[in-house]
């Protein structure tokens, strides 16, 4: 099995290698990053949970837009991703 073409993203300014077809969540998990955000009320570390787009725990700021789910967002070359305090806003 071969993944797609390699792409590069930055996470909090650090370079992360990824592959076309991966989700942001997968790319970050593969690079050893499990903490994807900090919860707003209690400051708890949060990451993936349901990995199917229903729990909204994995929301991150992606290419400047806050509250996007990492597990359903596909990577593209040059994407920038930030952890930090994040919650989904409708």
């Amino acid at each position, binding site marked *: *099995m*071969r*993944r*797609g*073409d390699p792409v590069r993203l930055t996470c909090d300014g650090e370079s992360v*290698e990824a*592959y*076309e*077809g*991966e*989700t942001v969540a*997968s790319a970050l*998990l*593969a*690079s*050893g990053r*499990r*903490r*994807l955000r900090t*919860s*707003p*009320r*209690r400051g*708890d*570390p*949060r*990451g*993936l*949970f*349901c*990995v*199917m*787009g*229903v*729990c*909204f*725990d994995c*929301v991150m700021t992606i290419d400047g837009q806050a*509250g*996007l789910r990492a597990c359903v967002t*596909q990577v593209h070359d040059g994407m920038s991703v930030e952890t930090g305090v994040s*919650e*989904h806003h*409708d």
Partner: protein
Amino acid sequence: MTDAPNEGDLTEQELTDVELLVVGAGPGGLCAAIEAVRAGVDVVVLDDNPRPGGQIYRQMPASFTREGGARRGSAHDEGARQGFGHGASTRSGKKVRAGQALLDEARAAGVVVSSGSTAWAMFDPGVLEVVTGDRNHRVRAQRLVLATGAYDRPVPLPGWTLPGVFTVGGAQGLLKSQRLLVGQRVLVAGVGPLLLVVAGQLAEAGAEIVAVVEPVSRLDTLGLLPALLREWRITREGLGHRWSLARRRVPWLGRSMLVRVEGEENVERAVVADVDSDWQVVPDSTRTFEVDAVCLGYGLVPSVELATICGCPLRFAPETRSWVPARGADLQSGAPGAPGIFVVGDCAGILGAQAAAVEGRIAGLTIARDLKRLEPARADRLLQPYLERRAELERFGHALHRAFELRPGLTSLAEADTVVCRCEEVTLAEVDEAIDEGADTPGQLKAWTRAGMGSCQGRMCASFLMERLASRLGRSLEEVGYLRTGAPAKPIISLESVSRQ
């Protein structure tokens, strides 16, 4: 939540008329579409994932290709840590082939799936609002098939919000669709058939499973043997995984439950305790495992949000402790004032992929008959074997539910400071305080504490809130009712841009 967009903006948009609209491209939706398309019905299938197949037949992205050997020289391929380097096992291969066979059948029949489309509301009877990308479409259908599936039952316990805690469905999806392992040292805890399947798949892909932890005893599952033998084609996959776990000497801890997850930034330790036959924790019986991931699997909860939005009345299903759309023998819901709405698959009750496929075919054939594309006599002849098979699968499913029935101790794991609403970070203590002060329905708890008000629309907490209300008030689960949700069926991030158009 923002307000729904101005209805005036939407109702001025053009309507697309279709004969049959199917929501969900898992086995249920695909089979309904296949039968209807074959009979000449005009069908549109919507699915909100990037590729069809639902959860059970989750596909890899188009850009991943099946070739020999894994990509070398990156974090993705370090040994067994996050890679999946050695090809699918025969058992996983079988499932992949079954999924591929269904997708091939759908393609051959001429079924077209609109992927990345989310049906989110019904403002006018029979008209579904659908978002694809950042555009809203309105689709008016003569018949509707809802095949929206299910999601893992969330079980609050101390530490469950730590990064590294996954649902078994999530771990399986990550493996199937992204070829990644959730961790290197994994503890799998839960109950039911999916547990062993996923533990086996993770082990076969190279994870070290430190233990499989289940509250049932071996004796509990013995009574299942006749049912398991009758449906041996379905059960052999699970048995195969059980064997591959045994071969790897993975400890199976019966009469045990995961009671706490510990760690600073991520999961570091999993604490397991003995439980009694009611799944209540036996004091001073804990042992601790060093892990980097935990998978929780305590069954599935039907996704009924779209069905309720469409006006389908719900009934309480005691076998899964959840609320599901009420249906007639032809799988049609009793929604008043709405066109024929058929509800199939796990969203109507957790009976598994085979049952979903059979129900899909029943719905598709029935709709073809209703729309006069199939003669009634011919339709009935085609329906008969599916109806019989459905009855068999329902009996089988209920036998599984009885054997793996959730017991009271499951909802006693959360402690006062445990977050029970993940989105709004509401603790058990706050929920209990509200109940003691008079909140006696899930809706009141939501208004009181904000539990259920967050992004997930209560999917991650409603089941627990219902159980907590029932146990604290001494009422039945059915009496306390369910958390009512309105549109949107799923949060639509791009809705703001829709309303501005």
